């Protein structure tokens, strides 16, 4: 029986079908596991190893290299405060101090109610909008103590804080583990067809094999 629930099992199969070699799906499947459980459990890694033809040790070897994968439960909302230079110059460290004292945990810690985990992170590509923080990887630009307090209040009250965030993002804020709320999905009739590299022995049909010109668009 699969570790993934029925819906995620289907997604996992679809993800696997998009890669010429199954091991390439390890990282996407780790994200899927984290989406289902909020963190990456040992059982999930065993399942991913089976799906990708690797071992649980190899999956852990890959997973443990990447910061976003958590191997123990974390808060439903992971608050990442950037303290790299662009943000540091405009108060990123003071913002982190405020987050820590407001939530009562140091960076790396999780609040007792399991709602928030705080992290001191590297540059998140919002440098002109410093200082900034993210909650479950959703951006809050030009942040200050007030914005942070409002976001925390929203989450505690069960409201989405995204309208306060970076322009263009809105709607519900998913719990930790879910990244994109939209998935790539290709219907079978539109797929060009993924093949293993060893099954390819020549150029694709539109490439001229000699001096013959290719056909143009209609």
């Amino acid at each position, binding site marked *: 029986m699969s570790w993934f629930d029925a819906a995620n099992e289907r997604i996992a199969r679809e993800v696997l079908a998009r890669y010429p070699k199954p091991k390439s799906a390890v*990282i996407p499947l780790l994200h899927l596991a984290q989406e289902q459980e909020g963190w990456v459990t040992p059982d999930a890694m065993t399942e991913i190893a089976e799906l990708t033809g690797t071992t649980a040790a190899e999956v852990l070897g890959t997973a443990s290299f990447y910061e976003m994968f958590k191997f123990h439960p974390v808060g439903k909302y992971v608050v990442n405060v950037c303290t790299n230079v662009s943000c540091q110059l405009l108060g990123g460290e003071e913002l982190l101090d405020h987050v820590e004292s407001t939530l009562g945990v140091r960076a790396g810690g999780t609040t007792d109610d399991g709602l928030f985990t705080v992290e001191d992170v590297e540059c998140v590509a919002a440098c002109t909008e410093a200082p900034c923080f993210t909650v479950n990887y959703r951006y809050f630009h030009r942040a200050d103590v007030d914005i942070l307090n409002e976001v925390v209040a929203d989450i505690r009250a069960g409201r989405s804080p995204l309208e306060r965030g970076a322009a263009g993002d809105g709607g519900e804020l998913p719990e930790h583990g879910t990244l994109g709320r939209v998935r790539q999905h290709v219907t079978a009739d539109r797929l060009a067809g993924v093949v293993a590299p060893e099954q390819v022995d020549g150029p694709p049909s*539109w490439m001229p094999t000699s001096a013959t010109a290719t056909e143009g668009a209609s």
Partner: protein
Amino acid sequence: MDADLRDGDGGGIVTGTYVPHAAGYVDNGGPKVVTSRFGHEDSFTLERSLATGGYEGLRTALAMAPDDVHGQIREATLLGRGGAGFPAGVKWGFCPEGVWPRYLVVNGDESEPGTYKDRLLMERDPHQLIEGCLIACYALGLTQCFLYVRGEMALAQERVAAALNEAYAAGYVGREVLETQFSVDITLHWGAGAYIVGEETALIESLEGNRGMPRLKPPYFPAAIGLYGQPTIVNNVETLANVPWIMANGAAAYRQMGSEASPGTRMFAISGHVVRPGVYEVEQGITTFRDLFYGEEYCQGIRDGHELKMFIPGGGSAPWFFAEHLDLPLEAREVGAAGSMLGSGAIIVMDETTDAVKACHRMVRFFARESCGKCSPCREGTSWEEKILARILNGHGRPSDIDLLLDVGDNISPGPYPVASHADEGLEAVPFPPRQTTICPLGPSSVAPITSTIRRFRHEFEARITRGDGIPVAAAVPAGEAGS
């Protein structure tokens, strides 16, 4: 070429304006290649893309022989926008003859400190990027493209996924694109938090499901041996975003912008102590740092009447510049000769209130945290550098620490390290790039903040060490006297 695309802001602007829905982006009224749709709130939809010339470059390309499409990109001298600045058309030509299949991997793992452009391009105009990928795949005979988006960019992943779904359904991606023989799959892949994955061979390792550690070189280009051991072209998001414009308007039109050596435009993110930090699309080669920092249409000067102390011209890996370098043009070769690099178009401006030791420590801490651990000089060296800087910062520095820092740096990057000129001291620039005892440039990059700041502000380090700023109160009481 960019008229009517600035609707909503009054038009005819010379001072530029923030575009509210594209956070940080400033429309400076200049020519637009990659940000032409940013003025539209729905710029990420297929409908808006098609209404504003989207996929016209693809149609033009499909009407040409693949080699001729490649020729246009070569002729345009499209320089890579990821950091190294290598011409994309030349890189595309490195695939060995007769070896199939070949792959395209798009590097959207933007994580260089100070860099904010690829995220905007993916969030605001994913179809432009997809179109660029399609044109590259058509030109080079690629049937499989992987679009690697940084893991932390949730909205960018959503926008790219949604755009791919639309483009597949509408016949722009997938089987028999626009009813031609051209068939290609584009797969959205996403990372999980590791700066090193921005290095192209590490990116390929990550895409194969492994730890993102750079591969031993040679071969220097994955075009020889890349994904699954096959020829692989790795291009940055911004690089590919330029491709549709070039196909739709021609290489000659592209070359009319920017300078001879660096044609076209580039996105620059200017952060830090300027009045109007932002992301600007700027003509390369002819605009100077001074224009960018002080121009009314750009950053409008250093904040609140403060003075410029120093700036990082090309992301966290770049050696730092100072006021005497303001008149350099935004041109890769000139910046390189002056001892730094344009890198990823990330400029961090610091005024006189900035503590050089603190800023240096924070940047070095980044490299210490992000070192993948494969090469000893970097794994050990970056963490040594960070610890030495931390103790100087915390008031526990020793007089020998400054030379020790330089010595540790010399083990990662031997010989004279690239550094800017220092006119007052009569010191000349050491040109870029640094030498390295490591597989990739991450370790050597950690030396940049150190040599840059020690050469200029040695007195700040010395003051920290002799004054012992920041010694904790508890440590000031000798143990033997406690309680006496």
